[in-house]
């Protein structure tokens, strides 16, 4: 089954093109990584696929349904790049993760024991069960990111869409995150993720789509890092365009 299908997508921000005629297909059970430099349009691509950015041209289908008629949002778990600007009122990890359950919980219904169990399972999956009652604002960046992943998992989705899930995340959190993702994939889940660096996620990824200047530059096997980027000791700290590392034709 085709889970995500983007055809000839064109997006522009205030007249400046961000995506110029992009196609992308994600099949059920696959793990697809969208790679690219900052500003390449990779985040725009998945945001357009979720309807968060309007298309100037082209079409999006989710689970074989045109986006504007799509109502099965409970099947999708979205993990944004980061929690929006620190919010004004403290919220506990459990409160944030519970909001991920609302897609499944009926409107104005009290949470059932299944809802509470799903929240607990999601917290355990990212190894944050002992932090459930802590305010999200006091957690490290990596723990906040794991909170957002738990929020997406709490809805027991079929498709996880993650925007730069490992950016600026410490090594422990990256491992905890990779483990949670592996578990999700083994359970039959589909993953679409955007990344600058794959890091510990590399073994999980089936296919890579490289976006460059708003177009697809590569769609297929995960490109191998070339030159000094291939060195395992390479500290990847500088922002650069994907064309610099030259790992694909």
């Amino acid at each position, binding site marked *: 089954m085709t889970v995500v299908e983007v055809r000839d997508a064109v997006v522009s921000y205030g007249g400046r093109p961000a995506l110029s005629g992009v196609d992308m297909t994600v099949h059920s059970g696959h793990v697809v990584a969208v790679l690219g430099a900052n500003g390449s349009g990779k985040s725009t691509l998945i945001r357009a696929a979720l309807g968060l950015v309007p298309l100037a041209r082209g079409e999006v289908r989710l689970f074989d349904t045109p986006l504007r008629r799509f109502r099965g949002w409970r099947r999708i778990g979205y993990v944004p790049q980061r929690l929006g600007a620190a919010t004004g009122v403290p919220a*506990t990890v459990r409160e944030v993760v519970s909001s991920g359950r609302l897609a499944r919980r009926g409107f104005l219904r009290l949470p059932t024991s299944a809802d509470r169990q799903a929240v607990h399972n999601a917290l355990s999956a990212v190894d944050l069960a002992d932090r459930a009652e*802590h305010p999200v604002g006091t957690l490290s960046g990596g723990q906040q990111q794991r909170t957002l992943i738990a929020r997406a998992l709490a809805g027991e989705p079929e498709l996880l869409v993650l925007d730069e899930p490992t950016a600026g995340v410490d090594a422990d959190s990256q491992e905890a995150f990779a483990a949670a993702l592996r578990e999700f994939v083994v359970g039959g889940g589909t993953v679409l993720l955007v990344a600058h660096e794959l890091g510990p996620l590399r073994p999980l990824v089936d296919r890579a789509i490289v976006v460059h200047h708003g177009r697809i530059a590569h769609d297929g096997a995960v490109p191998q890092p070339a030159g000094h980027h291939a060195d395992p000791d390479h500290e990847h700290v500088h922002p650069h365009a994907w064309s610099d590392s030259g790992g694909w034709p």
Partner: protein
Amino acid sequence: MNVFSYDFMVRALIGALVTGATAPALGTYLVQRRLALIGDGIGHIALTGVGLGLLTSTSPVLAAVVVAALGAIAVELVRERGRTSGDIALALLFYGGISGGVFLVGLSGSRTNANLMAYLFGSPLTTSVSDLVVMAVLGAVVLAITLLLRPWLFAICHDEEYARVSGLPVRLLNLTLAVTTAVTVTVAMRAVGLLLVSALMVVPVATAQQVTRGFRTTMAAAMGIGLLVAAAGIWAAGTYDTAPGATTVLVAIAGFLVVAVGVAIARAVRRTQARRQPAPDQPASAEPPDVVLTA
């Protein structure tokens, strides 16, 4: 002498308590969304409703609810578009609202400044029984929405994009919150006045979140603080014959300062203790110490 032996003081107290519970309940969402001052703007708009009510000899309160709700919906539509020019649109709306109100109140023939002042800065001591009924009904509506819809309203205020991808009716919830803000402004109009409404929506929340860790506890604590300062404000105003609306807000701000100082002292004490006796079996925690008020 007990100021609450007078019937009008009891009515003032009941009205203030309704305000004290509802304004912070709604205000928690506004602060969460970083729209702390939006209540102030809606209050400005509500004055036009008051003016219309007085001019047409209908109920100023009901006219205020309707006009404030329309204004709140307009504000929400401006916010939704998220343009920078939205600032100017809000300024036109807010100052148009308060000017329109002053203009219409003047036309209505109730030219005494006292009437206008009562709506702008509150006049709880003149609360009538029918005022109380209206406040209680509107207050119940506000509490029902803010408490029953908490998980959904929390979701849109915490992360609106995520709520959208969850398939929640984001626009409907946003408009519900906007209209509820308008209703809350009207409920609080009698107790603290349209220009001070926002203070009771924001200050108790700001006080509460200095010591709370979660959203639900912040909301509950803010409502408790709201009830406390509303009662204390009316008592102090009755006892010392001061302006009730302003007194209530000053009590709320004093409460904020007391808690802020208490938190700072508690932190300093903990830090000194930690320095004096570093616990060997406890690894240094990345978490800030729990704040305990009763040092």
